[in-house]
């Protein structure tokens, strides 16, 4: 060791370091480091491989298993879910009954008829009711003439507005039932 700039001051420190080092090296040389290292290598080879293996593969394996379990659950739930009950014509008829073009008594008779004849009869009635509702709506729209150029929409009375809203809701409900988009059974 050479300590050019601090040589005179550093001599004691150098001597101390050298002494410490020599003692430690004597201790180190007495021990068979190579043999200890070989033992260490065998131990790490024996103990560490499962840990290393799990550390490396545990993540991907767990993720895959989780995804598979989730996918399986989703498939099973979808497969075994009770099919949504198709709305009967009676339900549709009752939904449409508040409309002006619909005859509840005729619908009741058609529903009572068995076989395809009754079904067709009731379907026809429902179709008629929807068509009549549409017609009424168009007529009402014609009646409410919007003055051109003014940009103003005529004001309707609250009662009238409620009536229009009600009809629209009735039709919407019936259409939802017919398209199987309703939670209503």
């Amino acid at each position, binding site marked *: 060791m050479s300590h050019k700039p601090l040589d005179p001051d550093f001599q004691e*420190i150098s001597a101390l370091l050298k*002494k410490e080092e020599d003692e430690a090296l004597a201790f*180190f040389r007495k021990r068979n*480091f*190579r043999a200890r290292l070989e033992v260490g290598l065998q131990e790490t080879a024996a103990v560490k491989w499962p840990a290393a293996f799990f550390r490396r593969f545990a993540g991907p394996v767990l993720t895959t298993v989780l995804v598979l379990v989730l996918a399986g659950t989703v498939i099973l739930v979808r497969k075994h879910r009770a099919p949504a009950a198709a709305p009967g014509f009676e339900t549709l008829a009752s939904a449409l009954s508040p409309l002006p073009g619909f005859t509840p008594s005729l619908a009741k008779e058609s529903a009572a008829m068995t076989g395809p004849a009754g079904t067709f009869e009731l379907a026809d009635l429902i179709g008629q009711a929807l068509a009549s509702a549409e017609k009424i709506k168009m007529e009402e729209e014609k009646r409410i003439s919007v003055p051109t150029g003014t940009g103003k929409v005529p004001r309707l009375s609250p009662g009238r507005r409620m009536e229009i809203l009600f009809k629209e809701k009735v039709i919407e409900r019936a259409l939802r039932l017919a398209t199987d988009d309703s939670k209503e059974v």
Partner: protein
Amino acid sequence: MTAEPIMNTGEGAASGEEIMTYQEDVFRVCLGFSRNPVEAEDLCQDVYLKALRKIGTLQDRGALKAWLLRIARNTCLDQQKRGRLFRLFKRSVARDDARVGPAQEGEASARERLAELKEAVRRLPAKQREVFVLREYGHLSYAELAGTLGLKQGTVMSRLSRARKSVFGQMNRGKS
């Protein structure tokens, strides 16, 4: 020492044997960081286990010593972070004092000074300490130090100079 290769590393088998020639250098560096021969030996073993595991990744065989000492330095710093070395260091200082018999006055004084030196090195800032340890214990040249620490030689020299001054200052304060 047995003639059998320490580890069958295929093409790197020669390197596996070659790194064994640096065991005392590694031990000295570990001693510098730990200041305890027993702990230094354990650290040295950790360093070799890591090195033998990664020896296949070493491209430049000429840089083997610097590579090995870098592993040693990182292993020691990791251990220091865990606070293990600090505790052992304190214990080793205590043991040094305890070992002194009443009949060996000169020895007692040397032990005391050594304990002061250890304390002075321990108090060095981390960056200065590692340069000091690698230089004084590992006997690395400035170029090797720069390579091991990834620093410029000028930086290494100035850090080492500051570290020495600081150690010397603390030792002198202890003396007075």
